[in-house]
């Protein structure tokens, strides 16, 4: 998985024809005692504690900056999804009634806005992350994966706090009482985090070479917003007739991992009467498509990042 520099000779006894011409026996012994040669820069590390310390500290510092950076501090961080929610709520329940008959539509709307905000913060935030931390990358050795992961972790901090607001809203304003399927929440979040991490690794590595990744991702983000059941419930899609090759639209729609996660959240947390993501996509076998997509993206993101990690410092 980790790329070693090429020509990794046999331990300390160099066989290279232009190395030190002759190595005395005692030196050879000493060379062996040096152990493995220095590895070049890489995505990961064998010092996992340092990996975690770095990821956590970078994320924490960024969080602190947002928290204490302005007069209102965290209020702003909280206000952003809430304001977006407010606007969407007024428009889509009072003006254009897309909410339809969905039960607890405001709660669904708020939860989805918060989760979508997490996804965009993590992915769009990591696009430039490696390039923006150029001074670190070119000046010091550390596992490069720390950079996109710290962006995801920062978004996760925000999500955790925003979810508390969602929880209060769901229970107090919408009268949903806690129930056993709330235990699914960590799994849904894990699914979202894995998805966001995979995309983040991919984008941050690609951006080093291709600078138009950023505008492309801005557009994709917009598409994902309207392609996920945020401002309308999935019943709107389920109501569509037909579909290509006899596949109902709703099944195709649910392949979007965000739609899958949001719908499962709605089913498990807010309204157990709503179809679960697994029902909506058409059953278990079909569910493997979004699940596999997320797993696949994670692997691809990891491989791409891992392969480009040794050269990032040279391309910046």
């Amino acid at each position, binding site marked *: 998985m980790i790329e070693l520099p090429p020509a990794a000779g046999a331990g300390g006894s160099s066989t290279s024809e232009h190395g*030190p011409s002759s190595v005395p026996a005692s030196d050879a012994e000493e060379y062996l*005692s*040096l152990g493995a040669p*220095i590895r070049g*820069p890489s995505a990961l590390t064998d010092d996992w504690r340092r990996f975690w310390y770095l990821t956590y500290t970078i994320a924490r510092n960024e969080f602190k*900056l947002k928290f204490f950076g302005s007069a209102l501090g965290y209020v702003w961080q909280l206000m952003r999804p809430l304001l977006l929610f407010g606007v969407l709520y007024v428009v889509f329940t009072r003006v254009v009634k897309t909410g339809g008959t969905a039960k607890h539509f405001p709660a669904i709307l708020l939860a989805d806005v918060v989760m979508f905000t997490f996804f965009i913060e993590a992915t769009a935030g990591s696009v430039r992350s490696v390039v923006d931390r150029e*001074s670190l990358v*070119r000046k*010091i050795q550390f596992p490069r994966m720390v950079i996109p992961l710290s962006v995801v972790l920062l978004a996760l901090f925000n999500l955790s706090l925003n979810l508390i607001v969602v929880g209060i809203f769901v229970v107090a304003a919408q009268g949903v009482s806690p129930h056993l399927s709330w235990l699914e929440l960590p799994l849904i979040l894990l699914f979202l985090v894995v998805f966001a991490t995979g995309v983040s690794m991919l984008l941050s590595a690609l951006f080093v070479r291709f600078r138009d990744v950023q505008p492309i991702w801005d557009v994709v983000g917009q598409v994902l917003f309207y392609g996920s059941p945020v401002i309308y419930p999935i019943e709107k899609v389920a109501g569509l007739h037909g579909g290509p090759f006899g596949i109902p639209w709703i099944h195709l729609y649910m392949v979007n991992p965000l739609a899958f996660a949001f719908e499962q959240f709605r089913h498990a947390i807010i309204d157990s009467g709503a179809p679960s993501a697994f029902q909506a996509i058409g059953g278990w076998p079909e569910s493997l498509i979004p699940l596999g997509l997320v797993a696949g993206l994670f692997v691809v993101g990891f491989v791409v990042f891992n392969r480009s990690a040794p050269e990032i410092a*040279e391309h910046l």
Partner: protein
Amino acid sequence: MEERDLRGAPLALRADSVTKSFRIPEEATHTLKERALHPLRAARYRLLTALRDVSFEVRQGEFFGIVGRNGSGKSTLLKCMAGIYAIDHGQIWRRGRLSTFIELGVGFNPDLPARDNVIMNGIMLGLSPREARARYERIIEFAELEEFQDLKLKNYSSGMHVRLAFSVAIQVDADILLIDEVLAVGDASFQQKCFDVFNDMRDAHRTIVFVTHDMSAVNRFCHRALLLEHGEIVELGQPEAVADRYLELNFERETGVPVPDLTPIAAELAAQRAADRPGAGSARVLEAWLEDDRGARLPAAAIRQGEPLALKTLVRFERAVDDPAATLVVENDEHNAMLVVTTLVEHERTGHFEPGDHCVFAFWFENVLAPGRYHPVITVSRRGGELDLLDRYQHQYSFVVTGSRATGGLVDVPFRTSYYPLPAAASTVAR
């Protein structure tokens, strides 16, 4: 310089035929669009070999210098040792923990107070958060910043900034330290402090690899040194021999820019260093000259002592810059900053400059300098300190102050004296 036999000491670092080349793309594709439109066009590269077959060993407790001209590959070698660049061929081994100081204060965030930055930087350099927190007090104490620790870093002066960064760096207990020319920053007193620390480290038998082109530093500290030229070792051994060879190499080379009033070797050094201006390229100091108070240009070879003087400099902006600041440091031959004049004090807002705009910065001062040669160092920066350095103009211009009123001091400030003969009885009391 003390002679210590290090041959018996265990190896700390070993490089075996290290080769590193960079692929410089002839036509850079920077977008996916270009890539998608021309999928089959093979990217053409020019191969630039920065290091060729470099082998050497460093023993534990050794102070090892790596010297060479700009572009000789010395910084690349350091980055390979630090694990920042991947090596193409060959290998490097090391024993023990290794810390790199290519730049002081890596990871510093201007919007956070000292504490967060110290911990971040410490972790970057290999401490655990607990160790970093435990050492925080000592770091702040060494940096003499106890009163300012709650201040955000952006409110620090550049001197405070460097002091803090350096204090963190020396608190990191690595077995091997890789140091790039961090000494180039800071004022003379801070440089002295750095030198003291280096001496302590050497006496404490730490292994230090030190990249520089300051030959005096090599002679002062290093047990052994290595001279690189075009990515290959040309000399490896005693620092004196390496320093001689270095000067020889520079002397052989033809001078590009003639610098008047300098000895040939110094001129060569100056021309070669001039190519290494570290500015981000947003601005270029094109020229510097001296004028008297009536605006007449003065010959650099004979500046009269004690008269008002203006050093003016012509700057061209290559990119749009807001509120650039210019600072003049006049150094003497020993690189002591004799005086510092900056626009930052009087002209905080210097306005907006477009690419291609020119600006003349003038530094007026009373010429109190003692007779001797002086080297102005002009830096143009964006406001916010040396981190946003746009250009540094150095080693390209020097002037000589002449005068008869040499007192032996570094400066000859206007003074007067008087004396009061005391009656005999009073003198015993006064004494």
